[in-house]
């Protein structure tokens, strides 16, 4: 069974619950090639659960998720790893490995997925990733020596190092000041333009969504409540939709 052509992520009738708490109820979603879609929702609305279902970190009860035309619920771990090599994931908490330097953090996914590369090629990729996030001087620093914004950039560099086709951003601006948030949002757009990636952005930061997303999906009560561009949703008459913009 294959998903619609040009769609890099397709979600059909997704259900996920934790005990009696139904987090996702008949959720449907499409991400087209080169597109950037934001999933907007309140805290605890199931946004992070959704993004973790996409990458196979959380198992769902019902529905289908196709990533790069593969039904991820049917993949074994080796097949899932091949898909994961093409999907970058920027974690809300950055998830940088504390015991490793910045360079070692970047090398970690490289050494697993690009075993054929020489040391010179690996070093070039690390330099390129650090240049992309404008932090070339941090290679030998430990994550604990970096500021919140720098950690986010390094996490983004680690996500980018495998040149993924899709990037999943989980609350990329949470905990950052407005100026750094804007810098990170602009960086995400730059990366999108440079590498022609498709991306899913999970956020409740409307300013970040405005800068990054081509289209917005509102996740309310576990379902895709409303969908459209930033401008079309801003002019909606629905109070629940408008509450995100005020």
């Amino acid at each position: 069974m294959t998903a619609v052509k040009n769609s890099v992520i397709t979600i059909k009738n997704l259900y996920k619950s934790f005990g009696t708490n139904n987090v996702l109820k008949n959720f449907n979603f499409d991400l087209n090639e080169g597109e950037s879609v934001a999933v907007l929702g309140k805290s605890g609305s199931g946004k992070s659960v959704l993004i973790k279902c996409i990458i196979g970190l959380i198992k769902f009860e019902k529905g289908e998720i196709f990533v790069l035309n593969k039904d991820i619920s049917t993949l074994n771990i080796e097949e899932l790893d091949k898909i994961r090599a093409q999907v970058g994931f920027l974690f809300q908490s950055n998830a940088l490995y504390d015991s490793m330097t910045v360079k070692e953090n970047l090398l970690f996914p490289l050494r697993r997925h690009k075993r054929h590369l020489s040391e010179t090629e690996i070093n070039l990729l690390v330099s390129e990733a650090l240049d992309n996030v404008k932090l070339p001087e941090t290679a030998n620093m430990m994550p604990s020596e970096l500021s919140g914004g720098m950690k986010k950039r390094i996490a983004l560099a680690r996500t980018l190092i495998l040149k993924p086709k899709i990037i999943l951003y989980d609350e990329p601006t949470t905990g950052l000041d407005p100026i750094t948030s804007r810098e990170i949002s602009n960086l995400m757009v730059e990366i999108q333009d440079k590498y022609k990636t498709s991306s899913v952005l999970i956020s409740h930061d409307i300013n970040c969504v405005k800068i990054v997303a081509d289209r917005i999906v509102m996740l309310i009560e576990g379902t895709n409540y409303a969908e459209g561009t930033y401008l079309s949703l801003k002019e909606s008459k629905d109070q629940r939709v408008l509450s995100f913009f005020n």
Partner: protein
Amino acid sequence: MKKDRGKILKPLYNVLNEAGEITKFALRFFKLIFNRPFEYNEFARQCYYIGNKSLPLVAVTALIMGLVITIQSRPTLVEFGAEAWLPKMVSVSLVREIVPVITALICAGKIGSGIGAELGSMKVTEQIDAMEVSGTNPFKYLVVTRVLATTLMIPVLTVLADGISLYGAYLGTNLRGVVSWNLFWSQVFDVLVYADIIPSLLKTFFFGFAIGIVGCYKGYNSQKGTEGVGLSANSSVVISSLLVFIIDLIAVQITDLLGLT
């Protein structure tokens, strides 16, 4: 009445449930141990941290144990006119029982809590998830390497601690008397036989495995944010220390049954 019974049975149920979960976790370790790729670098790094970084603490404790046991034993032996037996008696006590158990308890405190806190913190900061999405089996990378390292390094530390504690015993013997270096060691090796050394060494592999598996289990399944990290570290120490005593009890029974006592 039924409610009271429930109150009594619930902790028992929780203990059995935890024991079952740790067993499942250990079985997963054995299932993955021979799967490729083997994480040699991480294993070597863990051996270095667990072995080298614990050595000063283990060494100091072993030296003090040797000294203290010798000083404490002397008056009793003097009372029976058996002072000359001091090196023999102390060395058997140290090598067979005291050093392996105390070393394992120190390692349960230092290594077990360290592993529990490290993996717990990795869990709550999504580092384990990050590892999984970057195509690495976190169980294999984090758990298998750490459990193998503790299983291997605690016997090594125990052997070193045995030697250091015997040196402590030599110093202790010479505090109130004069026993030459050669005489001391000839008495020690006169009394120590393979039946003393091998069983006491074998059980330290089980101590190491128990410390590693409990620390990893607690850290890997850490919940409730930073509070959970503290709980993981704390319960790693408590459970692994208890397991050290239980394993020791079983080991003593087995050696007794085999006639090695």
